[in-house]
Structure formats: C-alpha cells, structure tokens
C-alpha cells in the first residue's frame, strides 16, 4: 500500500501524478475510463428495474396508465428542472476548476448540493401524499380509488425505482459536498480537475436516469 504522499507526488515531482503513469493526461484518461466502467454497471443496475417496469407496463397497461394519473405531473416537472439545472452547475464547476477559478467552482458545486436537497424535499412531499393515500407496494396497497390488477405493482416499481434513484442523489450530494469543500480549500487550484470531473459524471448519471423515470411514471 502506497502512502498518500507517494500517490500525489509520485511521478518525478509532478503533483498528483502516480508513479505508474508517465504523464497526467494518461492518468486522467485511465481515471475517466474507470469511472465510465462504474457508470456502465449503474446503467445495468437500473436496467434491471427498467426491464421489470417494461414487463409490468405491458402486462397491466391500463392499470399503469390509470395509476400514473395519481402521480402529480408538476412535482415531477419541477424536479426535472431542478436536476437539469444542477447538472449545469456541476458542468460549469468542472469548467471553472480547469480555468483555475476554484472559488466560483466551489460555489457552483454547493449550489448543486442544494439542488439535490430541493429534489429530495419535493420527493418527500410526494412520498408523504402516496403513503397517506395508501398508494403503497404489495399487500400494503389500500387505495380504494383504484382497485385493479397490478395497481400495487405500479407502486412497488415506483418506490423501488425512485427510491434507488433517491439513494443515488444522497450519495451524489455527499460526494459533491466533499469535493466542493476541497475545491474551496484550494485542493484543485493548480488545474488538476479529475476528482471534480468524476464526481460530476456520477451526478450527470443521476440526472440521466431521472430523465427516463420522469416520462415513465409521470407522463404515461
């Protein structure tokens, strides 16, 4: 196990360059590729749930259309705008770190974390409505207004998919908060932007998944 000093100052005195890379570009490329491999596994993780959605959307098509009327479009629309905007601020933060404007970048990252909080707050309001109405998964489903085959399955998928997405939002907020703090403290003042870029990629993926969840649950 190498010490941190060796990792950050490995390559012949070049800051941030590990000794097994010959230059920073190669190291950044490897880090990016690793992150994309991880994101591919995330795509497949959500892919399994999307497959389940497709199966039950096909089996209980009328019920799913009726149940999606119970999910309020405006909450989903606001959350879509919130996430898209937070993606913009993360992309801009990466941009400003590369142009050595760390303070600006840190504030943009903090704004992204705040957007994540807004997203979760709105989601919490929605969840409260659904729980109070008895729109719940499986045998806990007790909503009298819609009694049809597969109604409980809609809510199983709704809570599973938005819930797993919500967990990703929480993790992304944690990562971005740490990166924002380090950026503010000047850790990336020299233009070394890989940590900002990779945490940004994760946040963009969270946005990407919501882009598909929104029409499937709110707009069908």
């Amino acid at each position, binding site marked *: 196990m190498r010490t941190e000093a060796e990792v950050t100052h490995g390559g012949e005195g070049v800051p941030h360059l590990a000794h097994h890379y010959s230059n920073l570009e190669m190291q*950044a490329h490897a880090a990016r590729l690793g992150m*994309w491999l991880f*994101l591919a596994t995330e795509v497949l993780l959500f892919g399994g749930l999307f497959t389940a959605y497709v*199966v039950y959307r096909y*089996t209980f098509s009328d019920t799913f259309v009726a149940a999606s009327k119970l999910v309020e479009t405006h909450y989903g629309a606001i959350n879509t705008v919130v996430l898209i905007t937070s*993606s913009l601020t993360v992309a801009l933060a990466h941009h400003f770190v590369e142009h050595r404007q760390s303070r600006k970048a840190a504030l943009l990252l903090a704004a992204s974390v705040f957007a994540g909080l807004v997203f979760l707050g709105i989601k919490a309001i929605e969840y409260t409505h659904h729980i109070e109405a008895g729109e719940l998964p499986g045998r806990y489903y007790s909503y009298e207004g819609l009694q049809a*085959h597969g*109604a409980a399955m809609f809510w199983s998928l709704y809570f599973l998919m938005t819930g797993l997405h919500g967990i990703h939002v929480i993790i992304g907020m944690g990562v971005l908060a740490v990166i924002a703090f380090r950026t503010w403290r000047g850790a990336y003042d020299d233009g070394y932007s890989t940590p900002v870029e990779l945490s940004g990629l994760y946040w963009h993926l969270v946005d*990407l998944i919501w882009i598909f969840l929104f029409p499937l649950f709110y*707009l069908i």
Partner: protein
Amino acid sequence: MANPSAPVSHDEEERVRHISASRYYVVWVALLVFTALTIFTARGVHIPSPWHLLVGLAIAVVKAALVALFFMHLWDHGGTTRLVLVTALVFLALLIGITVLDNATRFELSNPVNDRNERFMPPGPDILSPMAVPRGGRLPERSQGAGETGGAPARPGGGH
C-alpha cells in the same frame, strides 16, 4: 523515463479545456425546452395510446444524449469511454428487447392475471392462479357459480 508532457490523448484534454462556458448554457436551455415539449405532448395534446409513450421516450433519449455528449463530454472524449457506454446500452437493449418478446408472445395464461386474461383463468385461488384478485376488486366473471359446471376442477386442499 517519465515525461509529464508526452502527448497521450493530449488533444482531448486540450479540447475540453477550450470549451467556452456558453456551450453548457445552450445545452441547459435545450434540455428545458425538451422538458416542456415532453410535458406538452403528454398533457397538452392527445396522442393515441402506443404513440404517446414512444414520443415521451424519444424525447427522453434526445435529452439523455445531450447530457451524455456535452455535460459528460462524450462529444470531446473519443474511443474507449464511448465504447463502454455503448456496450452497456447494447446489453440493456438485449435485456429489455428479449424480455418483451418473451412476454408478448407467451401463452396468455402464463402471464400474471390481468385485464386481458382474467376471464380465462380457472376459478382461484388455487395453485393455478397464484396472483389473487386484489381486495375489493373485480372477480373473474366465471367464478360466480359457473365454476361448478365448467372451468378447472378445484385442487384437493388447494382452495380456502
């Protein structure tokens, strides 16, 4: 031996560094426009049944492409990173595509009880119809009395 300035994928890094911030704002506005468009096509106008879903998904794919290409820089970073995402998407398409083919071409009674097949189901609940009708929901039409003359025989010890 280690030469920090050796040009490995140097072009890509430089290209990202020279993107102006205005590009991100343009993509953001485009994403907002497509969001408004998808809400309008779903709620503002009436598109007949299978098509409204396809329109919604097509817009979602365009939005996702904008995010992946410009926010996630796949437009500027070539080669392997694109290949990783494309590979994941190919296998996702196989997973969803083949599963849908299976469900859509099945003998209808092997699907869970739904609006299309419930009237062909044997009177439940027994081992042949494990998906019970939801509480307070509609019972299959044949289960009231008709089960005595037609329908599948009750399994010994199966029904309650």
